[in-house]
């Protein structure tokens, strides 16, 4: 029945419209022509209308992490092809193509980092790698992220951007949802905070596992976030979906995220949340006055 819907509407059409040899870009929000360097310097946020275009994993590291530095963990993990899956092109070939195109080994980076001087365990989906889909490697790395963070007493900040489970790994990709959530449960038992940052898009098996289980869920403006793909829903209910359906603003209206935070304020907001949740008081330590 349900997922994953691959045709996710994009808000980064600007990257496809390049004119003047990539010197200028057109904003998806207001349509104004902007200097590409200006947009990049503003972490892909339009200075005129505030439209958030897609920021890649590299850009997010620079935006959130001190010195843009990530001490990356488990960088050598690569997928196998347990189903010998082929849809005309083999899964192995698809992985090789994605690796070449993105210069990434898989659809997630994890590691240790500092956010405003606070040590954290950090993870970020690489959406450009097969739509950020979750197969065995992604599931394993998320499990290790929570396990290492639990062992090291670190909070977790995880940036979600995924179309869902990776079909080419079949049922094993579904099992990654259970594996990752089980690891998250153990981490939670240590009473360490998990800040889940929902970027555009977060759908299917990633949405329906750990993405909404943050102690605090933060969404980006206009990000598409939901369980089922729009086409699947439309063909099931035979109705056109209302405007703004499954966007971040729809989610906050329905109580599913704590806040929508623009990119410019993301680092400071996460920092404040972590401070509150890590400033734990020993029992009986209340001031006596």
């Amino acid at each position, binding site marked *: 029945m*349900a997922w994953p819907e691959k045709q996710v509407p994009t808000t980064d059409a600007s990257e496809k419209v390049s004119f003047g040899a990539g010197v200028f870009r057109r904003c998806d929000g207001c349509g104004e022509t902007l200097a590409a360097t200006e947009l990049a310097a503003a972490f892909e946020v339009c200075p005129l209308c505030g439209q958030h275009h897609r920021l890649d994993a590299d850009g997010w590291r620079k935006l959130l992490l001190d010195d843009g530095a990530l001490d990356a963990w488990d960088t050598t993990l690569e997928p196998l092809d347990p189903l010998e899956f082929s849809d005309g092109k083999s899964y192995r070939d698809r992985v090789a193509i994605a690796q070449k195109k993105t210069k990434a080994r898989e659809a997630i980076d994890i590691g240790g980092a500092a956010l405003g001087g606070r040590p954290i365990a950090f993870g970020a989906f690489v959406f450009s790698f097969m739509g950020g889909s979750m197969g065995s490697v992604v599931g394993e790395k998320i499990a290790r992220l929570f396990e290492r963070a639990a062992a090291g007493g670190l909070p977790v900040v995880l940036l979600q951007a995924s179309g869902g489970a990776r079909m080419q790994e079949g049922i*094993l990709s579904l099992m990654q949802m259970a594996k990752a959530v*089980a690891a998250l449960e153990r981490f939670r038992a240590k009473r360490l905070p998990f800040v889940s940052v929902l970027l555009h898009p977060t759908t299917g098996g990633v949405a329906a596992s750990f993405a*909404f289980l943050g102690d605090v869920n933060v969404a980006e403006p206009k990000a598409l976030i939901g369980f*089922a793909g729009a086409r699947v829903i439309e063909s099931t209910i035979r109705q056109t979906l209302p405007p703004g*359906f499954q966007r971040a603003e729809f989610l906050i209206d329905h109580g599913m995220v704590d806040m929508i935070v623009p990119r410019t304020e993301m680092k400071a907001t996460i920092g404040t949340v972590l401070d509150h949740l890590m400033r734990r008081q020993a029992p009986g330590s209340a001031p006596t006055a």
Partner: protein
Amino acid sequence: MAAFVLPFEKPVVDLVERVRELRVLSETDATLAPELARLEQETSRLARELFSDLTPIQKVQLSRHANRPYTLDYVKRLCTDFVELHGDRRFSDDPAIVGGLATYHGHSVVVVGHQKGRGTKENMKRNFGMPNPEGYRKAIRLYELADRFGLPILTFIDTPGAYPGIGAEERGQSEAIGAALAAMARVKVPIIASIVGEGGSGGALALGVANRVLVLEFGCYSVISPEGCAAILWKDGSRADEAAAALKVTAFDLLRLGIVEAVIDEPAGGAHQDYDEAARQLDAVLWPTLSALLALSPDALVDDRYDRFRRLGAFRS
């Protein structure tokens, strides 16, 4: 039962019908016994032969068979003293998931299962076994109830998937499923999941984070329906047969991939030909499996479940 017959099962269904008639006649005429025995054997042989050659998509069709026994059919046969419990205490009661308290081999247990309907009217009520968030929140409530009272949990998986609807999204389908996975990972009681029909993606997994997972011979489990997969890969839902083969969704695929611990034989012609026998076959594996888990401590059960899922995946480092 209204007869619904898939084209490929016709020869077996005809034989099963004849066995049934002969069984009735032989109750009053003892001389028919040898003929009955011969026909039963013949039926079982033909069914095995015919069904051993089924394609993956035919097995998927069997897993969805309109006459197939559903959760409540099994609960009725496996358990006594069933008390159905309703509602998520937040919004409503979702009839696509049923659950409650029951006695199984002398033990009080909590049962939770997807429930499809028989006929149009009941199927409308049960939304064809596709739960809304309230179904998963009821399941969570029952998992936690089981945990508080130290009762083992038996789940029955049989759903096309979680319902993809506007209301489901508004009320947090994703969060409900995620929270159900977390609750199952957390509880300190034995959990056994039995895939009795369709195991449709995350909507099935929300009842599937168990210490042991069993699947009936013609049960299936998949990350996406073959039709949905074909629509995405080839923009052509009619190539579901190819997708079903590529996705490796059948019971023995699942066993080979380490997704399930055991495949349960079905009666000749499939579970829908003999509910009592289907339940007996399931019971023959379910009860020893539960007995073994009852020996584990609460913490050991959580660790056991953790290790089970922690191992699943295929990658090189």
